[in-house]
């Protein structure tokens, strides 16, 4: 085990419920510079190409080559020289046209092969055995605009990710690189046969995804955060896993009433959305759950305790029991919360975390979570810099315990994970552009790449299991 300036051991998230003391902070450059000092490793830059690497053509394979976002892809290289340093690199373009990259350093074995499912990266965007590291460790290429995040808008097309095998231990930004082999993979949010239906009825702005087949299907109502807009990708994945799913926009969408930065819809809006699912002929009306992220958590609790509907299960990711923004009808009463709880770092990036500390929340805004009648899964990123997730989860747990409902409560808590716990094998943005006007503001989400990736992988699996248990049995 080599020495770095910080403690280096990383554990997988399935140990998340146990306290983990040591985290690794992955910084590309420090990994490479540390590596350069270690003996026995060849640096490929400027090295004379050895003739032996020409005698045979290397082969790089990825299986499956068309995968769902949450499916593992097995990457192997063969017919390389023995005990040879190589770099595996992933590159893709986002919908906005930005280049995202990840890379890792491996050494071939005595047969001239590498297998990312079992081999260890010794440097690059991640270290250790990380079969999907090339996907979750993707970062904007050097020279990109600040604060980018990767969030797919068009879920009907895949991300095309090019995986290449380079000679030696190098990085995408270094000029001299010999590409030995490459393979193109497609990563999809939708399986074939899933139907995407735009919903603009009953004043609802949303998208419904139906699994293939006759139904009826269990369903989810899918709520996102205060950033607004309409994000479809989680719903598309739920439908790909056999659950009808409705994503709704509640602010920041051109088809919604009122200015974009205000939530002009209230409780009745979400009731309509839930009702739409219940009324749908291909949805099983008695098997509907709600999932919320961030501000979506408060909305989830409002639906569960005030709407008159009885969801079958609730999933709350990194949210709070209340919000200073909401009025009695569940509409946003001011454009942004009182900035007194904002914390700025030395770059001027803002952490909203303290806004949602239970002590800072107006008492009347706190939802009566003890009134929920169904199972609840609370997912917490312990490095969440946007919401006081841990503190609110504590509050929720206590409220349910006092009401004799502990058996309904499940908490998943992930050290080193940030605010945006999303479907797995996608990059974690530690910060991103929150708003562009009146001036640019970047929000801090928190989270370190490797533990956040582990959290996403584990949480997604648990979310699907939770849904199977409470919506299908």
């Amino acid at each position, binding site marked *: 085990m080599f020495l770095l300036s910080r403690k280096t051991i990383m554990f997988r998230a399935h140990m998340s419920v146990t306290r983990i003391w040591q985290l690794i902070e992955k910084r590309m450059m420090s990994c490479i510079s540390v590596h350069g000092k270690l003996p026995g490793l060849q640096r490929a830059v400027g090295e004379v190409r050895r003739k032996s690497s020409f*005698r*045979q*053509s*290397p*082969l*790089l*394979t990825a*299986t*499956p*080559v*068309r*995968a*769902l976002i949450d*499916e593992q892809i097995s990457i192997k290289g*063969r*017919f390389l020289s023995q005990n040879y340093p190589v770099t595996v690199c992933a590159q893709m373009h986002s919908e906005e046209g930005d280049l995202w990259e990840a890379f890792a350093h491996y050494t071939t074995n005595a047969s001239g092969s590498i297998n990312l499912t079992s081999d260890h990266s010794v440097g690059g965007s991640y270290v250790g055995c990380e079969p999907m590291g090339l996907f979750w460790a993707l970062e904007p290429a050097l020279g990109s605009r600040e604060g980018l995040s990767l969030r797919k808008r068009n879920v009907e097309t895949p991300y*095309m990710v*090019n995986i*290449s095998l380079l000679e030696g231990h190098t990085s995408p930004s270094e000029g001299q690189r010999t*590409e*030995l*082999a*490459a*393979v*193109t*993979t*497609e990563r*999809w949010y939708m*399986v*074939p*046969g899933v139907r995407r239906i735009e919903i603009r009825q009953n004043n609802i702005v949303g998208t419904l995804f139906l*699994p*293939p*087949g*006759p139904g*009826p299907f*269990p369903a989810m109502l899918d709520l996102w955060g205060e950033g607004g807009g309409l994000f479809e990708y989680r719903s598309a994945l739920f439908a*790909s*896993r*056999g659950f009808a799913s409705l994503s709704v926009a509640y602010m920041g969408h051109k088809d919604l009433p009122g200015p974009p930065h205000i939530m002009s819809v209230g409780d009745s809006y979400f009731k309509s959305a839930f009702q739409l699912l219940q009324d749908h002929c291909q949805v*099983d009306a008695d*098997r509907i759950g709600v999932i919320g992220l961030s501000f979506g958590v408060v909305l989830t609790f409002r639906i569960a305790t005030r709407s008159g509907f009885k969801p079958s299960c609730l999933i709350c990711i990194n949210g709070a029991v209340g919000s200073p923004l909401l009025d009695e009808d569940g509409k946003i009463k001011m454009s942004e919360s009182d900035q007194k709880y904002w914390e700025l770092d030395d770059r001027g990036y803002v952490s909203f975390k303290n806004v949602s500390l239970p002590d800072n929340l107006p008492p009347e805004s706190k939802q009566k979570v003890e009134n929920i009648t169904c199972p609840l899964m609370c997912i917490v990123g312990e490095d969440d810099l946007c919401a006081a997730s841990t503190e609110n989860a504590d509050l929720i747990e206590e409220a349910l315990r006092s009401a004799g409902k502990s058996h309904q409560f499940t908490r998943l808590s992930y050290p080193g994970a940030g605010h945006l716990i999303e479907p797995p094998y996608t990059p974690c943005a530690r910060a991103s552009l929150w708003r562009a006007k009146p001036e640019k503001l970047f929000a801090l989400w928190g989270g370190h790449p490797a533990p956040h990736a582990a959290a996403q992988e584990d949480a997604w699996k648990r979310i699907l299991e939770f849904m*199977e248990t409470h*919506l*299908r*049995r």
Partner: protein
Amino acid sequence: MDRKQCCVKLSVQPSRGLMDEKFIVLVQNALPGSQLTIRALHQCEDGHSWEAFGHYTADTTGTIDVSEDPSIRGTYSGVEQMGLLWSLRPIPGSKPGLRMRKKNIQTPMEVTISVYQGHQTEGFADLVPLSGVVVERWYMAPGVRRIPVTEGGLTATLFLPSGPGPFPGLLDLWGGGGQLVEYRAALLASHGFASMAIDYLTSKFTMETGKMVDNQYFETAYRVLQQHPQVCGSKIAMIGLSFGTSMTLKMAIYSEVIKLSAAVCISGSHVQPVEGSVEEIMGFFQKNAGKTRFNEKNEAIWRDLLLPIPTDPSLKADVGRLQCPLLLVVGEDDQNWPAQESALDIKEMMARAGNSHLLTVLSYPNAGHLIEPPYTPHARSSTFKTVEIQEKVMCLWGGQTVEHSRAQEDAWKKILVFLRENLYGGRNPTSFSHL
């Protein structure tokens, strides 16, 4: 309807696979012990519907895993992970003599897989399934490039793998039916080989002039492939099925221009007039057309046309002169060509000449003539038209479905290993007895 059965979940992973990739079909949340039917339905390009099904019993956890659990009966039985694909057959009432072959390889084959209550054998169209999924099966991996080739008068298509290259090359030949058949070449490119599918019987030249191509046609194809900037010119192999075998052996042994690193000959023979052109070789077979037999269903059996294997050396490609590894794939129930007898004779000739270390023979009991990439339906017979005979004939290919499908799966795997080791690996040519 029972509430629990509403929630039966069917999943297939991967939902988008290559044609030769295995998938896992899983049923979950069924009532333990319940009887269920899993069915596959596919509508092919010419509009015919094909179906396959298996009868299962859910286990104590309410699960059926097709890769581990047996089908009690259906179009396949036993533990058959890919049975839903290889046992596909035309739905009742279809025209006889159908064969499934994809023409447009840039789109996937779509298969709907559904699960039904009970053990059903017919009338699926009138039943509502408990659950259904759609699966895509692709001949082309993402990034593979399809390039039509007309240079030098060729009618061909080149498939290039993704990546910088250079890639080893492959010339891909089919049989007496002619046409430009692309699917195997597309699939081979998805495995890293720059593959050129060649139409050598119904090329543009032949259709316009009425003349068959000469030997130079194949040499032109070889040159075009060899000179391509992304092809490794010193690593080119040839794969031929049926009449394509005759051409492959001819070029491998006698061409001054073509220097192959390996050859794969499927369901073919070395029997041919040694000095003959394509036309003359065709003519040689035609001469023996009188030896055609018909079975009780009036299906044509052509295997006798080349029997008995001649002793006259001018009538057999001189395999003793081969200098590259040769993989022969033989279906022992081949009713169209005497592949098995030819393989035995080839073995003897090479033993006598001292180059049998180059030979590997894969011989499959109860496999027929059409040994193709795996997990597609087996046609024991189908309507067929060669370029010589103008009317369609019901041709007996042979093979029993289960053994034939196993043979396709095994042969394909071994063909890929053989090609990789000879074209990617840096080994000296040798036989692959470990295959």
